[in-house]
Structures are given as structure tokens and as C-alpha cells.
């Protein structure tokens, strides 16, 4: 830098600073964790889930009810952490037009059944052996929970273990905004 005058040095320094700021913004500036799901506000993809009790469940059959769709795995510690919360929440909401569905992913059936027995297994639970439902919902880890309103639209997604307060808050919002019309069906 011997050849440059003070003004030249300042210009070089300013250019480097500006470039570093721009690069930093481009790389880190728009990183929000967890990333909001692009599925929010869109219609929930229909699926047929093979339940652990041998029945089959089609999501579109639940139209008119609010659905809490929870993706989990038996080896996942945060899932174990939230499992008692989900069971307790299901008991609080089972007389309301709300259906709790658990979808076991990246897991083996025996471990999943042991997990369900351990944590109650009150609500509907099934396995997604090929991961098709998980990919269709953009699942990138467990636990992840989607809140689907009575019209079948995804209104929220929560990444990580839910607490009682969060369930009440998020389900409360969906229930308030949902046009409920399927009150004849049993919830969960």
C-alpha cells in the first residue's frame, strides 16, 4: 500500500468493508431458524396413513375439524419430551372438534409401538414407512407439528417439542379462525 496516498487507502478500506458487509448479508442476512414453511397458508396435502391399530386414515375425511399433525420418532429425545404434553393435550381437546394425529417417521415399528405404549397412545398414530408424507410436508427433523384448520389449510407449523401453553395457544388460534362444520365426527 506504499504506492497509495491516504485517500487511496481509505477508498480501498471502504471497498473491502462494503464487500464484506454485502457478503455477510448475502450469506447470513436472510437466515431465520427455523425457516418458515412454504406450506403455511396452502391446502394440506392429502394422505392415507396406515395406523398402528391396522386401520387406515385419510386426512381429507377429517375436513371440518382442526387437525394437529405431529411428526415424531421413537429415538428422538425432544419427541419423548413432548409426548406427555401431546397426550395430556389430546385429553383436554378430545371432546372438541380437534383431531390429533401422530406420524412416526424414520423409525422401526417395534420401537414405535413401545414408545406409544409408554406414553399413552390415546390419539391416532400411524407410520410413514417410505417417508412420503414427511417429504410432502417438508419435514426436516422431528418433532415437527402442523396445525391444519377445518377447511384443510395449513395455518401453522411448530418445530421442536411443544409445551401445554404452546398447544393451547396455537390450537386456540386455529379454532378461533376455523369455520367448524364437522361437529358430528369424533375428535381423535
Amino acid at each position: 500500500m506504499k504506492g497509495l496516498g491516504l485517500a487511496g487507502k481509505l477508498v480501498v478500506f471502504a471497498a473491502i468493508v462494503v464487500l464484506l458487509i454485502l457478503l455477510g448479508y448475502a450469506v447470513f442476512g436472510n437466515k431465520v431458524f427455523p425457516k418458515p414453511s412454504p406450506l403455511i397458508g396452502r391446502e394440506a396435502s392429502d394422505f392415507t396413513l396406515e395406523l398402528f391399530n391396522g386401520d387406515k386414515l385419510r386426512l381429507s375425511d377429517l375436513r371440518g375439524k382442526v387437525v394437529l399433525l405431529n411428526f415424531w420418532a421413537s429415538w428422538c429425545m425432544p419427541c419423548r419430551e413432548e409426548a406427555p404434553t401431546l397426550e395430556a393435550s389430546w385429553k383436554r381437546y378430545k371432546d372438541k372438534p380437534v383431531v390429533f394425529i401422530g406420524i412416526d417417521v424414520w423409525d422401526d415399528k417395534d420401537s414405535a409401538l413401545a414408545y406409544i405404549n409408554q406414553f399413552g397412545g390415546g390419539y391416532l398414530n400411524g407410520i410413514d414407512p417410505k417417508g412420503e408424507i414427511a417429504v410432502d410436508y417438508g419435514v426436516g427433523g422431528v418433532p415437527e407439528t402442523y396445525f391444519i384448520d377445518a377447511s384443510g389449510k395449513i395455518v401453522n407449523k411448530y418445530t421442536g417439542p411443544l409445551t401445554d401453553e404452546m398447544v393451547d395457544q396455537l390450537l386456540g388460534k386455529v379454532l378461533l379462525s376455523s369455520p367448524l362444520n364437522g361437529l358430528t365426527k369424533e375428535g381423535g
Partner: protein
Amino acid sequence: MVIKVHIERIFYIIALAVFIFVLLIPKSIADDIDKEAREISYLLMCPVCEGQTVAESNSQLANQMRAIIREKLQEGKSKDEIIAYFVSRYGETILGAPPAKGVNWLLWTLPAIALLIGGGIIGLFLYKSKEEGEKAQEESQKPPTQSELEYVERLDRELKEFES
């Protein structure tokens, strides 16, 4: 009679060729699907891995994603449609290379801009150094001025006095 034998032979040869062709078609289609599936899986990042593409990862999700890519190709979906499907599920962060739009264009253009600015600075620095070097050389090649000559003479005189 000879003509009939020839026709029969030609018929068998054609039938054999058709048979081999029919046998090879599914393999060729499967090879094409495998190749395209691999190509697509290199363009997508594994959502549960750090810095690995779907092709590189051994995670269960990446395995399932590869199977889904193959399935969609078999259904006749194009590469763009399959990539658009994954983007619609996971967002643009699933793409190995961010599309050059919005703030992402900075990622594409900044290296070139940095290279230009850096090159410019180095060029300017070299030019200035050369200019200064030439100036110094010119200075050294000039005949000494009267005051310089007097100074040298005085220095010599004083040194001799000191040594004696």
C-alpha cells in the same frame, strides 16, 4: 426353394433383433432414470444434514428423497417439475445453488465484483510503485547540483581531517 430358406433366415434374424431390442429398452430407460435421479439428487440439499446433497447423504430422509425422485421420474415428471416440488415443500434452502434473484444475486455477483475491485487495487498499486521507482531512478541519474558537489567536497575534507 432357396429363396424360401433365405426369407425364413431373414425372418429369424429380424425376430431375434427385435427380441434383443425389446429386452434392452427397459434397461436403457432404467439407466436414463438412474442417471437423471442422480443428477437431481446432486442439486438438492439434504434437509437433515450439514452441507451434504441428497446424493451424498446416507441419512434415511435422503434415501427416501432419492426414492421419491425416482418414482416421480417414472411417473413422467420432468427434472424442473421435481425440483419445483421439493422447493414447494422445503423452500429455496433445499437448492444446492441459490437462484440468482432477490438478495441471492449478491452471492453470484460479489465474487466477480470483488475480483474486479481487487484487481483494480493491485493494478493501481503496481502502477504507482512503478511511477515512484521511475521517478527515483530519474532523480539518481540527474547530474549533481552545485550545492551537492560542495557538500560532497566538504564531507571528503572533513573525513580526511578526522583521519589525520
